[in-house]
C-alpha cells in the first residue's frame, strides 16, 4: 500500500507491504529512504512500545473528531500532518463547522475572572475591554467583538471557569 501525507508542509510518500503487521521488524519506504518499524510490547488493544530502527519513540497522535490525523508528537516534538492519498484513491476531509455565534464570547482557556468593567444592558464599543480573564500569571483582556449592548454576563468577578465558558453576549 502507498500512503501520501503532508508533514509540516512537506509531501511524503510511504510504501508498506500489504501483509505488514510490524510484529516483526518491517521496512517502510519513504521517498528515497527506508525505516524499519517494530511493535514491542502489546497490552490488549494497546501498544506499549514502538521501535523505529530499533529506537524506542514516544509517540502521540493528535486526531480530529473523525479520527483523522492533524498532527503527531514524536519524542515531544510536534509535526502537523494530514493524509492526502491512500494508494490511488484521493482522500477528502470534510471540515467540521465551528458553532460560534458572533456576539457571544467564550473563554479560550480555563482561568479566573479578575475584573468586569460592564454590566448587562451597558453599551459597549467594539474593542472595549469587557473583562480581565486571568489564566495563571497572564491577564487576558477580553474585548467586545462588536459594538452593541451587553445582553448577558456569564460570569462574575472571582469565578473560576473552564475553557469555552460563555463570558458574555452582545446584541
Amino acid at each position: 500500500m502507498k500512503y501520501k501525507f503532508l508533514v509540516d508542509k512537506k509531501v511524503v510518500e510511504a510504501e508498506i507491504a500489504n501483509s505488514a503487521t510490524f510484529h516483526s521488524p518491517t521496512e517502510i519506504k519513504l521517498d528515497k529512504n527506508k525505516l524499519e518499524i517494530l511493535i514491542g510490547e502489546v497490552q490488549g488493544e494497546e501498544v506499549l512500545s514502538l521501535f523505529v530502527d530499533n529506537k524506542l519513540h514516544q509517540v502521540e497522535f493528535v486526531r480530529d473528531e473523525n479520527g483523522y490525523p492533524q498532527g503527531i508528537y514524536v519524542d515531544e516534538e510536534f509535526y502537523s500532518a494530514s493524509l492526502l492519498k491512500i494508494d490511488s484513491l484521493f482522500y477528502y476531509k470534510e471540515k467540521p463547522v465551528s458553532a460560534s455565534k458572533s456576539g457571544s464570547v467564550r473563554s479560550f482557556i480555563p482561568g479566573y475572572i479578575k475584573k468586569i468593567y460592564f454590566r448587562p444592558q451597558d453599551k459597549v464599543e467594539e474593542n472595549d475591554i469587557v473583562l480581565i480573564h486571568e489564566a495563571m500569571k497572564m491577564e487576558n483582556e477580553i474585548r467586545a467583538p462588536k459594538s452593541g449592548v451587553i445582553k448577558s454576563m456569564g460570569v462574575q468577578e472571582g469565578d473560576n471557569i473552564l475553557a469555552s465558558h460563555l463570558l458574555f453576549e452582545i446584541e
Partner: protein
Amino acid sequence: MKEKVLIPTRGVIALDIINSLNSMGMETLLMHSPEDALSLPVKLADRSFKFYSSRLEDSYLDSEAILEKAREVHADYIHPGYGFLAESPEFARLCRENNIRFIGPDARVLAQVEDKIKLRQTAAAVGLPVLKFSELIHSPLDCESCDEGFTYPLIIKPLKGSGGRGIRVADYRRDAQEQVANLLKREENARNGIFFEEFRPYAHHIEIPFFRDAKDNILFLPEIESSIQRRFQKIFQESPSPNVDETLRTSLYERSQALLKKIDYVGLGYVEFIVENNECLFSEINPTFQINTLISEVHLLSNFLKKQVVIARGELLHDVHGVRIVKPKHTVLLVSLMAEDPYNHFLPSTGQISHFFHYSTIRNVFKTTLYTGARVTPMYDPFIGKILTYAVERPNAINDMRIFLDNIIIRGIRTNLVFLKHLLENADLRSGGTIIDFLHLKFDFSKLKNTEEQSLVAAALLAADFHLDNRKKNYKGKLEKMKQPGFFKRIFSPY
C-alpha cells in the same frame, strides 16, 4: 520540643522551604488553599491546614487568617515564601506585633525596597549609577511628559509589586498610553502609580545574592545572571555569569555593600543590576527567598534557609565577620519548567498528570510539584519545577542539563520541555551570549521542530498507523469508508 514554622505559601517554593526546615529539625505547618489540597507540599509538610476558600484574597493573601492560625498552633515563625505576603511591610509588622518571627527582612527594610523609585534615588545618592526611570505616572496623559528622554521601546512598571506582574513593554507612545490606561485600572496601580524605565535589549540581568546582619557583616554569593526571560519570568539562570569579569564583579559587590549599609538592610536579599559593556546600573532589590536560592546553596554547600532563620532570630551571622565573598567552584545552571504549550503560543496548559517520570543523575537536582496524578490548575502560576545542574566547566553543565531533560517524561499536560531543549542547543547561549531580549534576538522559534530525519520518522509512524487500521478494517470485512481511522490509541506513551 520542635520549633514550629507556619508556611502560608504553595508550589515549588513551599517544597524548598518544607524540605530545608525538615532537615533543620523544625516542624513544618503548611497552610494551603482548597485548590492545593492534593499538592505535594501538603504531602511533605508535617501538618497542613486548609484555607476556607481558594480566592487569593481569602487564602495566601489573607493575613488575618494566617495570623489567627499562627496564634492557634503557637507557631514560632512564619515563612512567607516569595510573592504573596513575603514583601509586605504591613504583614511583617503584624507578625512582630503577634510575637511571631517573620522569616525575612523586617517592616522597615521591606518598606524601603518596596518603593522602586525612592530606592533608586537613595542608590544614586550614595553614588550608584542607576537604571533610568521616569516620574511617577498616574494617568495616560502623563505619558507625554514622562517619556521625554526615553527611546521606545520602553518598559512600564508598577511602582510597587513584584514577580514580573504588571510589567509591560511599549513600542511607541500611543501603545504606552493604552497600556498605562489598562494598568491603571488595577486599584493598587492607581494608588501607587507606575513609571517608565529604559529597555536595554542587549544588556544582562545580574543579581547579587547576599546575607547582611545587624552588625554590617555581609555574606556575598556568586552573581547570578538571569537575562533570559519570557513574559518577565526567568527561564534560564546561571552562576557565575559568563558576562561578568573580576573588575566588574568587585564593583558590583562594592556598590551593593554601600547601598545596603545606607539603608541598613538586615536579612537575605538580591541586589539587581542591569549590566551592559562596562556599565552596571542598579535596578532594584528583591528581599525574598527565591527559586534560584538553590543555585546559591550549591555554591555555599549548605542550607540557605538556616541563615535566614538565624537572622530572623535577631542573631548575627556566626561565620561571617566583615565581608565574606564565596568564590564559585562550579558553573551552576537552573532552568524553569513551565506548564505552557510551546506549540500553542506558550498558553498555559492545565490538567491532570497521567505519567510523570524522571531519571535522576549525579550533580543534578529536579524540584517539581508534579507527580503522577497531580493536577495543574489554572488558578496559579504556570511554574511547576526547576532543574539544576552544575559542573566545573560551563559546557559540561550545559550538556548535563541537556541530557537530563531527555530523561523527563510528562504526560497529561504540555510543558516547555522541548523549548528548553532547543534553548540549550542555541549557539549564542553556549557561547555565553545571554542577553535580556535573547528570545527575540537570538532564538529561532521555528527551530522548535523538525530535523529532516525526525519528520521521516513521523511520516513512517503515520503510515503505520493507517496501515494497521486498514488491515483491521479489511479483516473485519469493512473496506468502504473509514469511520474512525487510526490504529494506535490517541495517547500512546511507552512510559
